[in-house]
């Protein structure tokens, strides 16, 4: 064993210092036992990062193991930088979602921008060229000034970064709810394409191979970002703003091109992003995967400033840096490629046979761990799980008796109010700031049920979407998580895609609280159930715990990123209506069933300010059958448009089909008189799952009915498209017809968010701030 002595100037290891590093007494003792001695300050820093929740999954790993991760389509499951799935014709798709919640809570512009940068690197280090970005965002109410500032800053950060790198941002979701007021959720997903043969993993191999640091120099920014992400937000969090990194999308673009060139060149064996916990985690994880030892000399790492300590160099989260294991003797070839892209490379270490993780500063050893135990010996926890009594009570609340407001006597008022709910309303204010068409693959861009991207050199396309209704998961975690998977599947299916695989981003509160750990374990169980039913394995993802502030935890929000495959681009299906006299058919769960109800609905939240009741039951088998039915109808050429029912139920879905494309408003006559004994608000706004509104030529009705029966699904003809009409008419019994002028619905839907944001001084402040940041 090498001699490891404290470095002159290092602080003494005290229990206060240990606590400051987020380690419990037990964890510290575990570290001492592993080393057989007291750790140095540098070693304490390394362990603090690697054993943080963000890097170690110490509270979630045992639960994640229960998820289905295998299938013939899966080329790379969890554990790598990104999951990889075969999409046929020799092509593969790499995709992953990751959170950047805490940085975005204190510094929205840079927090969101660097979140985009990090997930991009995770995908191109697999050998895939990124072709699309998605974002799943949660904020508090836009009535709140700071929320408007966060929303505007996050959107600008996402746009400025993705636009500059030249990757289109094509889909996502934005939800506004008080539960996220102080702790927004910013989850970014990246999707890339490669030939199956180009897949590369981040596994250090080959004794004597050099380890090379590539890209930006290492500075003092973002030190301990991973641990920051692994604690609750508090008043003091603002003071941790320096832990937020600063992004440089121009360098990222160069790094992207250079990395892909390096991977294709055959000069390297492995490549990994220096992401959370920087050099420390990238080098330790690559060594662990390759079952080899490594030695790193921090004095060889290119730094931005003089006098950086090993501790700082190892834990910096400076952006746009990669760690590469090259083939011995190919250093010059690697360097040549990087120089062409104006990037630097420095050999900083070596793969060694001795089973040890060693860090030196010149000739002095400053940290040393036996084997790969610093990764594998991480503590595992299964804390107590117990549902909160408050939530049991909320779920049991009978919401059918909530009295209607006087305004609701006019059902048009209610429909407009629903459409102008920021959670439902058009998000064009945000996605107009995102380049969604660069790289010329975008068949369906933002605003559709899912985005569709063609695969070049193939007749295929992929569909991608993120989804999660946190309110459902809050009220009923297992059912709600099932619903998140199913909604994402339904959305990609509506564009004509067969759901293929998922990535997930589990945003939860502090797992040490039993009510939070209950939600986490139930939600993971629900994801597993739905993924098994739909045959969509989990290929990776990210766990973000500690999403809480003094005002409480966020809604448990397991965001699902779904990948679907369209075998023939001719099957790509839009969401909005177009052809006069087409019949409108509802597929899936039948109307007026006992399952209907308003529990957990957007209607109750938006109109009455109530979050209670049992959310709609999600039957994953029915979802699978409904999707199979829809896809067979689409492949048979019977479907002209398809749109799923989700937030806001059937009423909102119908209105969206009519007015989501503001340049082509299309009316319809709907007749739901058969259900005249069900109150209109329940019929229109209950959020029963497994429902899809399709339009078809009348001549296809017979075939659709035959296909539906085959899949045990009920097709209900509920109306007809009236292209010349200027209204959406919904007949609900004799003399009871809601006549909704399209112009009014369109105004409610399209103007809601711009009206708030364009009048907002906080939104303007972001423009000033960002202008300063980028100059």
């Amino acid at each position, binding site marked *: 064993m090498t001699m490891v002595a404290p470095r002159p100037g290092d602080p003494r290891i005290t229990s206060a210092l240990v606590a400051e590093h987020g380690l419990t007494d037990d964890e510290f003792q575990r570290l001492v036992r592993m080393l057989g001695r007291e750790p140095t300050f540098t070693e304490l820093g390394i362990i603090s990062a690697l054993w943080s929740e963000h890097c170690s999954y110490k509270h979630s790993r045992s639960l994640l193991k229960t998820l289905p991760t295998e299938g013939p389509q899966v080329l790379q499951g969890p554990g790598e930088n990104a999951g990889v799935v075969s999409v046929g014709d020799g092509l593969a798709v790499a995709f992953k979602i990751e959170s950047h919640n805490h940085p975005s809570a204190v510094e929205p512009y840079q927090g969101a921008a660097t979140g985009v940068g990090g997930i991009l690197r995770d995908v191109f280090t697999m050998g895939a060229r990124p072709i699309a970005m998605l974002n799943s965002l949660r904020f508090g109410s836009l009535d709140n000034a700071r929320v408007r500032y966060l929303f505007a800053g996050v959107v600008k950060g996402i746009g400025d970064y993705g636009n500059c790198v030249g990757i289109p941002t094509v889909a996502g979701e934005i939800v506004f709810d008080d539960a996220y007021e102080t702790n927004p959720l910013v989850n970014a997903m990246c999707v890339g394409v490669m030939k199956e043969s180009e897949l590369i993993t981040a596994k250090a191999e080959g004794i004597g191979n050099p380890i090379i640091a590539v890209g930006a120099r290492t500075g003092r920014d973002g030190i301990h970002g991973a641990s920051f992400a692994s604690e609750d937000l508090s008043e003091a969090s603002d003071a941790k703003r320096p832990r937020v990194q600063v992004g440089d999308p*121009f360098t990222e673009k160069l790094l992207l091109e250079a990395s892909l060139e390096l991977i294709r060149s055959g000069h390297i064996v492995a490549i990994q992003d220096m992401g959370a916990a920087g050099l420390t985690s990238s080098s330790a994880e690559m060594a662990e995967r390759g079952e080899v030892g490594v030695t790193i000399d921090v004095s060889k790492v290119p730094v931005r400033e003089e006098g950086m300590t090993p501790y700082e160099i190892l834990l910096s989260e400076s952006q746009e840096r990669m760690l590469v294991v090259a083939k011995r003797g190919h250093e010059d070839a690697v360097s040549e490629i990087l120089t062409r892209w104006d990037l630097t490379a420095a050999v900083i270490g070596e793969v060694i046979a001795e089973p040890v993780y060693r860090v030196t500063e010149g000739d002095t050893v400053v940290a040393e761990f036996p084997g790969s135990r610093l990764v594998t010996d991480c503590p595992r926890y299964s804390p107590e799980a117990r549902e909160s009594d408050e939530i049991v009570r909320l779920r049991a609340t009978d919401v059918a008796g909530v009295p209607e407001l006087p305004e609701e006597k006019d059902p048009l008022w209610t429909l407009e109010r629903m459409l102008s709910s920021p959670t439902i309303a058009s998000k064009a204010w945000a996605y*107009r700031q995102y380049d969604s068409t660069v790289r*010329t693959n*975008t068949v369906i861009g933002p605003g559709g049920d899912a985005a569709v991207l063609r695969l070049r050199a193939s007749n295929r396309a992929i569909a991608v979407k993120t989804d999660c209704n946190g309110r459902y998961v809050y009220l009923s975690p297992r059912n709600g998580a099932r619903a998140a998977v199913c909604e994402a599947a339904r959305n990609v299916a509506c564009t004509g895609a067969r759901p293929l695989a998922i990535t997930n981003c589990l945003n939860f509160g502090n797992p040490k609280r039993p009510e939070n750990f209950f939600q986490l374990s139930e939600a993971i169980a629900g994801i597993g159930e739905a993924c098994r039913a739909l045959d969509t394995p989990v290929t990776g993802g990210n766990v973000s715990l500690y999403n809480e502030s003094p005002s409480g935890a966020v809604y448990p929000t397991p965001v699902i990123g779904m990948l679907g495959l369209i075998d023939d681009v001719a099957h790509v299906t839009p969401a909005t209506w177009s052809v006069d006299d087409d019949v409108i058919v509802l597929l899936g769960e039948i109307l007026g069933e006992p399952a209907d109800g308003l529990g957990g609905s957007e209607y109750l939240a938006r109109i009455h300010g109530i979050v209670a009741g049992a959310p709609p039951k999600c039957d994953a088998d029915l979802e699978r059958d409904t999707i199979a039915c829809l896809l067979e109808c689409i492949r048979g050429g019977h479907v002209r448009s398809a749109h799923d029912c989700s937030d806001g139920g059937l009423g909102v879905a119908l209105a969206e089909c009519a007015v989501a494309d503001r340049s082509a408003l299309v009316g319809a006559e709907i007749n739901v008189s058969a259900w005249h004994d069900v109150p209109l608000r329940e019929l229109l706004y209950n959020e029963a799952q497994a429902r899809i509104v399709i339009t078809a030529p009348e001549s296809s009705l017979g075939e659709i009915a035959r296909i539906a029966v085959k899949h045990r699904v009920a097709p209900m003809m509920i109306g007809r498209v009236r292209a010349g009409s200027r209204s959406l008419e919904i007949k609900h019994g004799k003399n009871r017809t809601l006549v909704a002028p399209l112009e009014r619905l369109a105004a409610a839907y399209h103007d809601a968010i711009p009206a708030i944001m364009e009048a907002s001084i906080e939104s303007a402040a972001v423009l000033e701030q960002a202008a300063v940041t980028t100059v």
Partner: protein
Amino acid sequence: MKFGIVTFPGSNCDYDAYRAVVDQLRAEATYLWHKTEDLEGVDVVVLPGGFSYGDYLRAGAIARFSPIMRQVVEHARRGGPVLAICNGFQIACEAGLLPGALVRNAGMRFVSDAVHLRVENAGTLFTSGYEQGAVLRIPIAHGEGRYVADSTTIGRLEDDDRIVFRYCDPAGAVTGDANPNGSMRGIAGIVSDEGNVLGMMPHPERAVDPLLGPPDGLPLFESLLARMAV
């Protein structure tokens, strides 16, 4: 007939221009690395969109000093066609190939959308495939696309029919509402004095494949091909 597409560090629409030429126009294309001084005998130079050098100083301000730009300017002086799109338009203005400048959008925000353009001059090298006054639908994606110039320059552009495209509504009316970035006189694209350099903020190379939307950008490339073949 060969297109040369310049790749600056930070260019990100070079690929789209290349695919448009090769896949849709079925013509020959090659990438030209910004550090080279050899145009490899190309007939048309494309300065593509993107964020050359991150646009950190001012859009296009650094790219104009790349070695290849000397050759591009020389090519233009000889009357060779240059198609400058988005960031390429900004670079062309910085390099003095076109008058005026592109500054931050009036709304301050990046704008990504499909907009309508009216063909103001169907007599140029780039637009002979369009009808005069035709309304096109073409994507835009830029943060600094507001065209500005002094009144003498604007007057000359108008008098010489060098304003090639203006932003308009679906019916072809040039209105304030249809102008996405506050450009003077709704200007979306102009040509040089000699008519051989076209600068435009919208992306015709993104509107060439019917799968992705109306292929209204394709006639622009076809116009070049037809004229160069003569």
